């Protein structure tokens, strides 16, 4: 075991630190005060692009093998990403999300896209002169965590598909050059009817309904999209039809989450760390005299947050390490995501309490972090959904499909949680996990 941060990450982490201090945090505060994201033509985006910074995955995966570096070591794509995600979120998570790049759309294209799709849709980000964004359009007004209930329809019409429906809460959705849009070819097919399409901005029938006003993360653009008879060619189907054998579409989405949930967890740690640092700074200013009853309470809570940040970081790193080694990590990613998002909020809450009644004033960074960090507990599967994912894997939890499931059926699941739940009442990541079921050693 070795928990040193990979030295090869240090140059970009340091650059990110400089960028964060000089740009991400002040611009994030500016966006917060203005109540909306920086416009896409803001000079910051060109500047950051010229520095080689992008948001989202733009690497390549070959076949289904563990990608390796020249020295034979497993490539550290996910570990690098969690380190940088923590650092970027430390300075400003909203601004980090707004960085030009494929954003959340990058992972599914990289995991499922055809070579031509990867070349076109990820290749465009090699251009370091023009800021561009991608987007991931899954959520709908009636399908948030329950992604199996998406109702955006994709109707085959000759050699094209026609998309109709609404998408909401889409990061960078209005400024994106393209979006990975999830739809169903037939709701009656459940998850096996899911398909993902690469839809270019400007495609007739594809419009941006609005940019949302939010409690926090003002620097991050969150859009609602409408598809009204939006016709896309057959080649827009992500990965081609063969990628959807069985429940391939759904699995593809879940695989993307296995890669991105550790990043969200790392962001929770980063934001929590920012809140902790700010709280410690304020506490040092306020507690300069002899010990008081309040001091010991504050100390206790600071050390509590500090150790939990370390624990959260290890959960995120472990999930990323598994991903880099192509090992199943749905449980670990869920654990990291569920834990760290709440942790970020706890850290921010502590900061507000140390500030006392002035904690609610927007003069203080922790007030902003408190509003910003709550989003992490909701996006990419709420903490409740993470617990569903974990419980399915560990103890074969299934949603209620009547009252006669019986113990024998549960025991045959052997803790793998491999039951189909075609009523689609929850996001239940299903892949080829070999996570060892819990077993008693004492009976």
């Amino acid at each position, binding site marked *: *075991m*070795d*928990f*040193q941060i*990979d030295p090869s990450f240090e140059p970009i982490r340091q650059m990110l630190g400089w960028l964060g201090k000089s740009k991400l945090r002040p611009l994030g505060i500016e966006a917060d005060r203005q109540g909306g994201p920086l416009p896409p033509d803001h000079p910051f985006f060109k500047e950051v692009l010229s520095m080689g910074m992008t948001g989202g995955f733009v690497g390549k995966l070959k076949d289904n093998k563990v990608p390796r570096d020249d020295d034979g070591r497993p490539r*550290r794509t996910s*570990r690098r990403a969690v*380190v940088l995600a923590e650092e970027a979120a430390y300075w400003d998570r909203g601004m980090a999300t707004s960085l030009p790049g494929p954003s959340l759309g990058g992972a599914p294209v990289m995991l499922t896209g055809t070579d031509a799709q990867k070349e076109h849709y990820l290749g465009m980000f090699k251009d370091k002169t023009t800021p561009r964004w991608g987007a991931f359009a899954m959520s709908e007004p009636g399908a948030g965590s329950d992604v199996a209930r998406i109702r955006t329809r994709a109707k085959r019409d000759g050699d094209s598909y026609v998309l109709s429906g609404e998408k909401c809460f889409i990061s960078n959705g209005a400024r994106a050059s393209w979006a990975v849009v999830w739809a169903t070819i037939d709701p009656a097919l459940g998850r096996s009817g899911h398909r993902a399409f690469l839809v270019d901005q400007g495609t007739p029938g594809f419009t941006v309904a609005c940019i949302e006003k939010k409690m926090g993360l003002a620097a991050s653009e969150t859009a609602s999209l409408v598809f009204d008879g939006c016709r896309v060619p057959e080649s827009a189907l992500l990965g081609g039809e063969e990628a959807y054998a069985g429940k391939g579409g759904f699995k593809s989405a879940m695989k993307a989450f296995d890669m991105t949930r550790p990043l969200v967890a790392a962001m929770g740690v980063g934001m929590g760390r920012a809140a902790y640092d700010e709280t*410690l700074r304020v506490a*040092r200013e306020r*507690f*300069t*005299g*002899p*010990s*008081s009853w309040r*001091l010991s309470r*504050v*100390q*206790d809570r*600071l*050390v509590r947050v*500090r*150790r939990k940040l*370390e*624990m959260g970081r*290890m*959960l995120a*790193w*472990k999930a990323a*390490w598994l991903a880099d080694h192509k090992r199943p990590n749905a*449980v*670990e990613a869920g*654990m990291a995501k*569920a*834990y760290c998002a709440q942790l970020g909020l706890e850290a921010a809450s502590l900061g507000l309490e140390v500030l006392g009644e002035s904690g609610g004033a927007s003069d203080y960074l922790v007030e902003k972090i408190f509003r910003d960090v709550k989003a992490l507990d909701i996006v990419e599967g709420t903490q*409740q959904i*993470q*617990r*569903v994912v*974990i*419980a399915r894997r*560990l*103890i074969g*939890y299934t949603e*209620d499909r009547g*009252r*006669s*499931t*019986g*113990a024998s059926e*549960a*025991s045959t*699941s052997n*803790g793998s949680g491999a039951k189909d739940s075609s009523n689609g009442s929850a996001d239940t990541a299903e892949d080829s996990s070999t996570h060892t*079921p*819990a077993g*008693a*050693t*004492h009976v």
Partner: protein
Amino acid sequence: MPMDFSLTDEEQMVLDAAAEFARRGLLGKERDHEREGCVSDASRKSFAESGLDLLSTTLPGTNSDGMDLSWPARIQALTILARTDAAAAMALWLPGTTAALAKSLGAPADAVAGLGQSRLVDAVGETSAPCSALPMAGASRILDLDREGRWGIAEVTPSPSEAMALHAAGPRSADSVAWLAQGQVEAEAAHELRHLLRLVGSALLVGLARASTDYTAAYVQERVAFSKPLSHHQGVAFIVAEMAIRTTGCELLLDRAGWDLEQGQSRTGTDAWLEACETALWVTDQAVQLLGGHGYMKDHPVEKWMREARTITLLWGGVDAARADAARDLDLGAES
């Protein structure tokens, strides 16, 4: 290799040996150990023959056991033993660690012999503080260490003590007695040892948490209530998921603390202890709760684990002294 969670072949071999010892030497004997108030001679002999006893006597920066084994792996080995019988693991492991600590403090060899348990106390004075229900691991000497670096080794004449738990580690009570040896080290050095000792204690607690989580996870898949397994009730499933999250996180924090210790940063040991206390208390309680009436009965081990978690968290100054030690480097107020 940076950011790497893998174990070396040698480390894996040692952990396999620990698991094998736990299976052959401890499993199925837990209630016997508890009833008899000590670990059987056969288990002690088997432990020594396995070579695992050497792991307990090595401090960071030394290589007294001759094994090229990382501290995360050493801590994992103790955790594996504690999953099966934390009290027995304490009885087998702690004397070696206590003796190693005493040696590092500069205690004379004749005072070190026969040491069993250590205490992290507020102050080492002219006489040692009385002990009550202290798991002595069959020994008659205790080591005390305070925050200022004062230490002392006391010979006690313990009497058997009625105790809630940890019977295999021989809980004993004794009145105040004079010191066999005393000394003082730098406060910083003392704190490093306090952090280290707490890390060892954390392994016992995390072993209990893992045992409870796994046992409960298996039980809820078998037990049927309201026409379906308990595991299919969301209220139950979410608690088991939370048990797994906290236990896994704690295991990783122990790994981190072990690694930090090797890098000369020992404070994470106390962080790990605080987290392990919180986690073990909550997880073992939930295990009893989810087993319901069965959990309260001695037919299942979860009630034992809950008693043991509650008792272990009281040792080594408990959580309050740990919080104070952990806050030292916050640099808040006139005195931390």
